[in-house]
């Protein structure tokens, strides 16, 4: 798809014409991330993280393939080969630190990308499919990151693998055989390490495939923007190249400065010291914690401490362990339903006073607390706190969001992106170019859903 005014790819030389006829990859790129993709002109820096996430995926694949050239997935030698990479391989330490910190930065970028989607309701129609594919990518990333953390075969690797595969043991009836099948034994060993390595190598390429679908789905409605008002005409947009390639280039520079600072000066800060101790199946570390980016989900997992029983009978309906597992997976699965739970026709949080309050005073502190609590010791007051915030997490998405989207009175929206940027706009059909004389405010600010041109549709 494209807007009617999108620039067309015009091959100039005979060679590019020939390529364009046989396999129009340059045209594809031109339309995807080149001058042929019109993008709203008012995107803020929160819109940088999509490109950065793509960069992170490439970074992880390149450094990962390099590391795989020197790593051996065997419990006898895996820890030693990682040390071999750190000590003997030329620039091996750089590759490994870039890969390990790259995983953390990938998640930082992804969380900011998701944050953007949540605040600006990027999940709403017509962009539901982009959002759904994004959640799939997030799940793939979590699986990949978890399996990658197991590969060095340190203490946290081993016990992380044991605890996480142990979650599957909570499933009734099939749990225990499923768990044994997953690790290929009674505890993680060579079989588990080898399959984790295989899948850790495979999944990033699967992710890359889903990323292509994610971008494809994006190009059908086009990018959203901070006002949430859809693009109406050419003055609302600029070509992706050079406007957003230049902006993304600057964003990439900032990202790389922060990233290389961690790689070269604090490379082990985001990791755990116990993973520099070789795995010992007979000795558990004092506190088993996942990598920081799993903390919120780990906090949700641990929040369920009581079995669901029928009161006064002692009959256990669902064990606490299973409740935790259900809640942990459920906490991400709710995102799949988000486009249909939030029915407000207004997208941007800026124009939704009630949503805005719950977002900044509810969800954000809640996520911050869960990030902290997931890494805390399993003792009071952390348990009670993680239960309170877990409850809020589900209430926010499953109860509060559907209700506020029903009762909320949104603020008036700008008529168009052009107006939002320039402070004024001409109605369609006006013959002069954009932005010379201001219009009376009430003449252009319609309530959502009432736009005569139908460009602002309810999210259903």
């Amino acid at each position: 798809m494209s807007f009617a005014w999108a620039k067309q790819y015009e091959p100039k030389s005979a060679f590019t014409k020939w390529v364009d006829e046989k396999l129009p990859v340059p045209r594809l790129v031109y339309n995807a991330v080149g001058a042929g993709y019109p993008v709203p002109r008012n995107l803020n820096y929160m819109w940088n993280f999509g490109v950065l996430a793509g960069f992170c995926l490439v970074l992880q694949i390149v450094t990962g393939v390099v590391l795989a050239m020197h790593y051996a997935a065997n419990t006898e030698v895996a820890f030693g080969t990682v040390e071999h990479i750190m000590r003997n391989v030329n620039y091996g330490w750089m590759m490994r630190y870039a890969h390990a910190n790259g995983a953390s930065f990938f998640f930082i970028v992804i969380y900011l990308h998701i944050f953007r989607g949540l605040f600006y309701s990027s999940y709403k129609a017509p962009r539901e499919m982009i959002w759904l594919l994004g959640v799939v990518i997030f799940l793939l990333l979590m699986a990949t990151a978890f399996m990658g953390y197991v590969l060095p075969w340190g203490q946290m690797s081993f016990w992380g693998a044991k605890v996480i595969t142990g979650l599957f043991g909570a499933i009734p009836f099939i749990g225990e055989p499923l768990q044994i099948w997953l690790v290929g034994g009674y505890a993680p060993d060579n079989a588990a390490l080898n399959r984790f390595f295989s899948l850790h190598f495979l999944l990033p390429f699967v992710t890359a495939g889903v990323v292509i679908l994610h971008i494809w789905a994006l190009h059908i409605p086009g990018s959203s923007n901070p006002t949430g008002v859809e693009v109406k005409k050419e003055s609302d947009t600029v070509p992706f190249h050079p406007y957003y390639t230049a902006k993304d280039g600057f964003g990439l520079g900032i990202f790389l400065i922060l990233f290389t600072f961690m790689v070269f000066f604090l490379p082990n800060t985001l990791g755990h010291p116990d993973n520099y101790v070789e795995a010992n199946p007979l000795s558990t570390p004092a506190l088993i914690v996942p990598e920081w980016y799993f903390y919120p989900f780990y906090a949700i997992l641990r929040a369920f401490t009581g079995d669901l029983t029928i009161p006064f009978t002692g009959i256990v309906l669902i064990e606490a362990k299973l409740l935790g597992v259900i809640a942990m997976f459920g906490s991400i699965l709710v995102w799949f339903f988000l486009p249909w739970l939030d029915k407000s026709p207004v997208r941007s949080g800026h124009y939704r006073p009630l949503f805005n309050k719950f977002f900044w005073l509810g969800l954000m502190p809640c996520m911050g607390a869960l990030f902290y609590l997931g890494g805390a010791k399993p003792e009071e007051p952390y348990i009670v706190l993680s239960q309170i915030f877990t409850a809020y997490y589900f209430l926010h998405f499953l109860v509060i969001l559907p209700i506020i989207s029903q009762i909320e009175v949104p603020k008036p929206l700008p008529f168009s992106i052009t107006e939002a940027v320039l402070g004024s706009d001409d109605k369609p059909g006006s013959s002069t170019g954009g932005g010379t004389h201001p219009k009376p405010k009430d003449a252009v600010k319609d309530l959502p859903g009432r736009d005569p041109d139908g460009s602002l549709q309810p999210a259903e």
Partner: protein
Amino acid sequence: MTIRLASIIVGLALTAVLVLWSLAPGLLNFALPEDPPYYAYQEENIQPAGGFVFEGPLGTWDEQQLQRGYQVYKEVCSACHSLKYVAFRNLEQLGYNEAEVRAEAANWNVPGIDPLTGEATTRPATPTDYFPSPYPNDVAARAANNNAIPPDLSLMTKARKDGTHYVYSLLLGYNEPDPEDVAKSPDFETPAGLYFNEYFYNINIAMPPQLYPDLITYSDGTEATPEQMAEDVTAFLTWTAEPSLVERKQTGWFVIGFLFFATILAFLSYKQVWAGLKPKKT
């Protein structure tokens, strides 16, 4: 509509389960963890006056210090602790030349095979060999050390929180228990065969105190105080854990400097591209 109704019901049900079956019992029995019933270990590590020379973004190795630290490892630690990820050839990084490394390696015996009979034996090490373990296997290590295996030291300063300072503190941490704290924790005792060390998370450590004044004679004439030896061997163990530490930081300065330059250019380019497109809001 149906889906939102269902969602509200599911959300309330899940919250109810959490609140009634997990949170409520938790609150009823709410009890903050009591003060540790046992003597608490010291989480704040000490460090030498002025810190270590390799710390900080500009820190570099002090080769003399690393050589002294190697001497401490060789004459004290290596009796019980292995250094299995470090090869003798790595000692060149401490400022020894190739011939010195070859000679030093020959002072150590590593497991070998008799070329005539094929029987297991030992031979002098060569630069490509790794530091040998003092024990043939874990069982022997356990048997010789009151059931506690002396851990490998190659990665010790990365394998503990705040590792460099921790190792330094631990080596000097064989103090007398604080009588006040002892009075607070009636169960406190130091079993036979263990030693009180306030920086060890279990308080009682299997390793006896090692560093006494003039335990070794430094070849460069430095006075061998316990603090000096602890600082030197900690520096050496930081090097064994991360030989690329200094190279890494120096590369980092160069990379980040370049990136700052590139980012400024990218910013100017970005502003240039957008110039003219965004008139000021009227």
